């Protein structure tokens, strides 16, 4: 039986961001941008959507007078990611 997939995670860029964050304690905006090959504008929009869903925390600070954005996955985000992967598997191996 196919499960309905979480629309927040069912987007390539948001899924890539969450997959990176699940393996790290925290990551800077520039790291996420570099690894996903996304534009700054696009990544900012997707990070905001993930934050609104409560899947990630965004911390804004300064380093050497330059703004620094750091992202961290939340417990809710981890749960959502695990459920998403489980549901995704039902499409590959439907029983």
């Amino acid at each position, binding site marked *: 039986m196919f499960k309905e997939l979480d629309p927040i995670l*069912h987007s*390539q860029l948001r*899924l*890539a961001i969450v*997959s*990176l964050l*699940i*393996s*790290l*304690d*925290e*990551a*800077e905006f*520039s*790291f996420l941008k*570099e*690894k*996903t090959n996304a534009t700054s504008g696009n990544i900012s929009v997707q990070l905001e959507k993930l934050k609104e869903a409560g899947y990630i925390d965004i911390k804004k600070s300064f*380093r*050497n007078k330059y703004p620094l954005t750091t992202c961290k996955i939340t417990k809710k985000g981890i749960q959502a990611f695990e459920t998403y*992967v489980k549901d*995704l*598997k039902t*499409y*590959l191996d439907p029983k």
Partner: protein
Amino acid sequence: MENTPKQHLDLIAEMIQTARREYNDSSNIYLLWGWVVSIASILQFILIQMHHEGMSGIGWVVLIPAALIAQIVMMMKMRKKEKVQTHIDTIMGYLWTAFGVSLGIVLFSQGKLQENTFPMVLMLYGIGTFVSGGAIQFRALIIGGICCWVVAIACFFVPVQYQLLLLALAVIAAYIIPGYLLKIRYKKNV
């Protein structure tokens, strides 16, 4: 065009692999302490042999504060370069903090521990190095940690001045050699 579930799972696997490959170069910290401890202990041994017992600890007095300052500067520089903090970085932070606190307690209790001080210090070196090696899957550090424990046992059976030579030997095996190998591994992966 909508991606297939297989493509989504492949993307997840790729991103997790990408994140896993991230690790920060900590080789300079191992090298710093490896050289400081080996030089200070060998110097103390030489000064004792030359009957300058009164000033035999001069190496420790000068080098330890300098190394502490150097470590703070190095760590601040590392923080500036780091774009991510991995789960392993967090575990290592706790591990080496626990090591520092335990080492502080041992050194504070030197008066009571007497000739058992160095074996206790080596046991702590062994824990820090062995666990770090396991966490970052680096065999040279694991072997270095085991060397510290073997040397710790040996230290219980020799006079303090020879313990100094064993201490130097242990840090060469546990910090200096793995430190250089770690640097090579990091450069290959960058």
